[in-house]
């Protein structure tokens, strides 16, 4: 993965916000990659979970906001259960979604539900997806 990191881009407030909202020590990650290795949706992600953490550590807010990886997180906690430092990567993903989603916009809202599934979906799927991906 080629990312140009400029120290002028380092958003200290971004790191702090993510750390506060997720109640996680972002700097504890030493990039072992176990989270990415176990993540069931890593195959579809543009930036892997451990890479997301690295970008947050370096304060690269723009890179992280542009990624679709956090919208592929199903909160299954495989990452957290595999992390040797006990970091809750799912919480970090949630914090990133909250911080980077433009105000008033749904990443995935009621209008985005394909009509063919609409009648069939279990209630908990609706509640969960809107809770996670819409304002």
């Amino acid at each position, binding site marked *: 993965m080629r990312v140009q990191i400029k120290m002028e881009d380092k958003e200290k407030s971004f790191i702090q916000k993510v750390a506060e*909202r997720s109640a996680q020590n972002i700097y504890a990650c030493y990039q072992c990659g176990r989270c990415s290795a176990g993540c069931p949706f890593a195959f579809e992600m543009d930036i892997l979970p451990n890479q997301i953490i690295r970008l947050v550590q370096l304060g690269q807010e723009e890179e992280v906001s542009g990624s679709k990886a956090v919208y592929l997180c*199903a909160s299954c*906690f495989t990452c957290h*259960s595999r992390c040797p430092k006990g970091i809750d990567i799912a919480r970090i993903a*949630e*914090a990133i979604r909250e911080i980077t989603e433009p105000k008033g916009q749904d990443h995935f809202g009621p209008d985005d539900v394909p009509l063919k599934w609409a009648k*069939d*979906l279990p*209630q*908990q799927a609706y509640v969960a997806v809107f809770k996670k991906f819409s304002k």
Partner: protein
Amino acid sequence: MKVHYYPGCTLKEKAVNLEETTVKAMKILGVDLKEPEGWTCCGAEFPLSEEKISGLAAPARILRQVESEGGDKVTTTCAFCYNVLKRTNYALLNDPLKHKRINAFLKDDIKIDHETKDKSTGFDPYHGDVSVVHLLEFLRDEVGFSKIKAKIKRDLSGLKVAAYYGCRLLRPYSEVLMDKPDDPSIFEEFVESLGAQVVDFPFRQECCGSYISVSEPDVAAEASYRILRSAILGGADIMVLSCPLCYYNLDRRQGLIKDKFLEFSGFPVLYFTQLLAWALGEKISTLGFNDHYFNPRTVLEKVVKSEVAQ
């Protein structure tokens, strides 16, 4: 035997086959299920952000209601509800700030005495003391698997079952942990108590796709397919599970899975209570199999010869 039972919103509508077979099976086992009065949706997802404490009000209210009805325990079959309720208790017990904020919500809920306009009378904070037990735990610890074994009316010895846990029954391990993380066995012990055989399959704890099946159906279909394929390769005849969303992803979405993965030709997936109710003698036509995309009936009748309860 009486126990508080929290069905959750999905069981009353989309997962009626889980709800009805639970009630039927518990009746046979002599367990009276009592729903807490005025229960609401639990919120489906435990809020992961420190900013979203209000999402804990609904599950806390449900637990508080159970407590006020004299219950020290509430059982549930939906993995989402189990996860949310259990984690809510953990938050109340371990995080003083959350305890304070959640109880502030609960306090606002109680009826005002219109004479004195005094809201503060009679408010007891809820501390997180109601135990949340999954029905499998309840069956193991309160009813006893041996008692179930004694009441089995069909010979399931030829049936090979893949017991699928998914994620929300177990993780995060420090808070939920229905069973040992490295090698959970409660679901397998349950299957064996019915007289059926258990198959080992490495994808039993993997995520089926969960709510991603709404926003990214193709990605979730791949996640679900891997689990089904693993069960098939393990030699299973059927899969049992305990979550309406897993059921939706692993059964109701089989049409989409077939389109993407041409070698897949369908596989029976059922709720563990459907299998339990059937094993306890309920007629196969009453188990809600018509709701399934892949009706398990033919496979079950092929493997277990007699329809008539022995």
